[in-house]
C-alpha cells in the first residue's frame, strides 16, 4: 500500500481500514522521522481518512503554521487554506506539517529555522528545497503523498532529488488562499507523490476556481486520471538544446536522454528546439521573485500575528518593526528582502525590476513559440543529483543557479512535472516535462506512460523500504 490509489483500492476491498493506514504512517513517522526530519508538527489523532502531509506554509486551523520561520513560531491560523478545506471535504486526513526552507526560499532545505531534512537516499545529502520535507516524507514512506508549493522549482527539484513525482500546476489552477505568500505571480501549490496517477488524483482534489483568490483562474475542474491512457503515440516532445548545455552533469544528461528514447520507442516524436532566452531566467527570476517577496513579507510587522521583539533600547514603532524582522527572519529571507527592496527602489526600478519583467515576456514567448510545434517540453529537472549539506550554502549565487531548469516554467506560468528517470551514485535523477497552460492532462499522460514502461518510481531507499 504505497500509493493513494493502492490505498483507496485496499480500503474498498476491505483489506485494511483507513484507520489502520493512518496508524501505519504514524508508526513510520515515530520510527524514522528523527533521522529524516520531515515533520515540524504531527497531528496527535488524525481523522480516519486517507492520510497525507502538508507543507508548513498551508494554513490549517487545527495545527500551527510556521512557514519554516521563527517569525511565525507558534502561529495558529484562524482559517484553513482553500486546498486544505477541499481535502477535508473529500474525506482526506492529515498526518502533519512538513519542514521547508523558511518562507519557501531555498533549494536545499538548509534554510529551515527548525531542523535539517535529510535525503532518504543518502542522509549526508540535502533533500532539495524548498519543499524538502514534502519530498523526503514521500520517499521515506512517512506519508503516501504530500502537498508542497513551487515558486521557482520548489516542488519539482526536491521531487527529483528524492526520487518522487512532483507536479507544479499551471498558475491559477489551484487557489493560493491560505498559502503564505512568497512571490504572488509565481507561487503554486501542488502534489508530491509516488507516481503520476496519484498526482492526477490529488490535483483533481485541490483544483478549481476560488473567489477568495483573485488570481484563481475560472477554468472547469476535471478528473485528471481520465487523461492517463498510457498512449504517447505521436506525442510531440520538444528537447530544448539550451537545457542540455554547459553545467549539466553527464550522468543526468545520459539518464534524461535515455528516458526520452523510452518515450520515443513508445511512439512519441522528439524535436530539437531552441529557447534562446533560457540563460537569462535565473537573473529575471531573482529580481522578480525577490521584489514580490519584499512586498509580501512587509506584513510581518510584529503587530497582528507572529513574533514581536521589543527588547531593543528604543521600543517605539519603527525600531520595533526593525528588531522584530531582524530576529524573526533567517539570513536568506533577509537577503532576498534586501535584493527585492533594492530593485524596487527609486533609481533602480527601471534598470532592474521593469527590465526583468520585459525579459520575462521574452521567456514566456519562447515557450509559446515552442508550443506551436510541440505538445510537451522535456528537460532535466536539475543539473545535478542531490548535493551534500554545506556544499552550496556558502555562496547564494551558486545555490540560485541550481534552479536553472525549473524557474522558467514559473515565469511563464506553465505546468511542469518531475518524475524519477535514473540513478547516479545511489541518488535519483529527475526528468521534467512542461506543458501548455492548463494542459496538465498531457504531461500527466506522458509521465504515466513513462512509469508504465519503467520502474524508477518504484525504487525505495535502503533503510526506508516498506
Amino acid at each position: 500500500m504505497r500509493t493513494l490509489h493502492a490505498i483507496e483500492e485496499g480500503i474498498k476491498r476491505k483489506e485494511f481500514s483507513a484507520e489502520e493506514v493512518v496508524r501505519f504512517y504514524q508508526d513510520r513517522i515515530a520510527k524514522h522521522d528523527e533521522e529524516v526530519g520531515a515533520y515540524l508538527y504531527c497531528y496527535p489523532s488524525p481523522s480516519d481518512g486517507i492520510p497525507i502531509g502538508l507543507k508548513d506554509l498551508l494554513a490549517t486551523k487545527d495545527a500551527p503554521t510556521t512557514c519554516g520561520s521563527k517569525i511565525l513560531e507558534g502561529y495558529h491560523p484562524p482559517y484553513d487554506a482553500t486546498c486544505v478545506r477541499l481535502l477535508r471535504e473529500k474525506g482526506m486526513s492529515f498526518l502533519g506539517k512538513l519542514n521547508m526552507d523558511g518562507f519557501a526560499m531555498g533549494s536545499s532545505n538548509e534554510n529551515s529555522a527548525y531542523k535539517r531534512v535529510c535525503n532518504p537516499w543518502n542522509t549526508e545529502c540535502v533533500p532539495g528545497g524548498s519543499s524538502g520535507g514534502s519530498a523526503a516524507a514521500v520517499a521515506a514512506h512517512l506519508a503516501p503523498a504530500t502537498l508542497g508549493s513551487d515558486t521557482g522549482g520548489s516542488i519539482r527539484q526536491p521531487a527529483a532529488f528524492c526520487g518522487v513525482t512532483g507536479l507544479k500546476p499551471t498558475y491559477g489552477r489551484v487557489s493560493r488562499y491560505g498559502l503564505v505568500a512568497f512571490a504572488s505571480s509565481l507561487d503554486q501549490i501542488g502534489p508530491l507523490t509516488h507516481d503520476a496517477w496519484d498526482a492526477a488524483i490529488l490535483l483533481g482534489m485541490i483544483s478549481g476556481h476560488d473567489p477568495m483568490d483573485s488570481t484563481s483562474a475560472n477554468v472547469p475542474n476535471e478528473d485528471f486520471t481520465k487523461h492517463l491512457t498510457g498512449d504517447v503515440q505521436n506525442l510531440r516532445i520538444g528537447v530544448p538544446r539550451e537545457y542540455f548545455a554547459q553545467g549539466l552533469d553527464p550522468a543526468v544528461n545520459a539518464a534524461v536522454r535515455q528516458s526520452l528514447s523510452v518515450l520515443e520507442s513508445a511512439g512519441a516524436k522528439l524535436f530539437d528546439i531552441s529557447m534562446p532566452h533560457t540563460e537569462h531566467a535565473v537573473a529575471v527570476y531573482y529580481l522578480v521573485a525577490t521584489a514580490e517577496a519584499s512586498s509580501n513579507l512587509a506584513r510581518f510587522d510584529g503587530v497582528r500575528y507572529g513574533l514581536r521583539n521589543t527588547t531593543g533600547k528604543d521600543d517605539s514603532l519603527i525600531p520595533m518593526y526593525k528588531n522584530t524582522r531582524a530576529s524573526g527572519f533567517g539570513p536568506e529571507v533577509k537577503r532576498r528582502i534586501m535584493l527585492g527592496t533594492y530593485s524596487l527602489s527609486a533609481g533602480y526600478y527601471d534598470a532592474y525590476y521593469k527590465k526583468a519583467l520585459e525579459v520575462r515576456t521574452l521567456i514566456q514567448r519562447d515557450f509559446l513559440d515552442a508550443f506551436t510545434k510541440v505538445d510537451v517540453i522535456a528537460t532535466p529537472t536539475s543539473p545535478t543529483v542531490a548535493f551534500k549539506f554545506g556544499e552550496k550554502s556558502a555562496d547564494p549565487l551558486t545555490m540560485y543557479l541550481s534552479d536553472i531548469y525549473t524557474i522558467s516554467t514559473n515565469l511563464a506560468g506553465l505546468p511542469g512535472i518531475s518524475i524519477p528517470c535514473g540513478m547516479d551514485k545511489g541518488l535519483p535523477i529527475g526528468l521534467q516535462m512542461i506543458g501548455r497552460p492548463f494542459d496538465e492532462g498531457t504531461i500527466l499522460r506522458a509521465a504515466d506512460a513513462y512509469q508504465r514502461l519503467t520502474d524508477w518510481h518504484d525504487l525505495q531507499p535502503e533503510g526506508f523500504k516498506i
Partner: protein
Amino acid sequence: MSVSLDEVKRIASLARLAISEEESLSLATELSKILDFAQAIQQIDTSNIPATTHVLDIVDVWRDDAVKPSLDRETVLKQAPAAEDGCFIAPKIV
C-alpha cells in the same frame, strides 16, 4: 556594479530590517555579486516588449457587496503579540 555599505544601510532601513555592521558588510558583497550577475539582462533589447507582471489574462473582479461571515475577532486577536478591548496594541506613535 557594486553596492556600497551606505546603500545597504539605506535599503535595510527601507525594508525595516535592523542589521549589524557585520551583516551589512556581507550583504554588500553578496548583493553586489548577485546584481553583477543580473546585469547581463541589460544587454537584451526589450524596446517594444511589454512587461509581464502576471501571466494570466484576467482582470480584477467585483463581487456583490453582501454581508458574509468573516473571521471571528477574538480568534484573530488571540494570534496578536498584544491585544486589548478588541484591538491590536502597537507601540505609541503620536
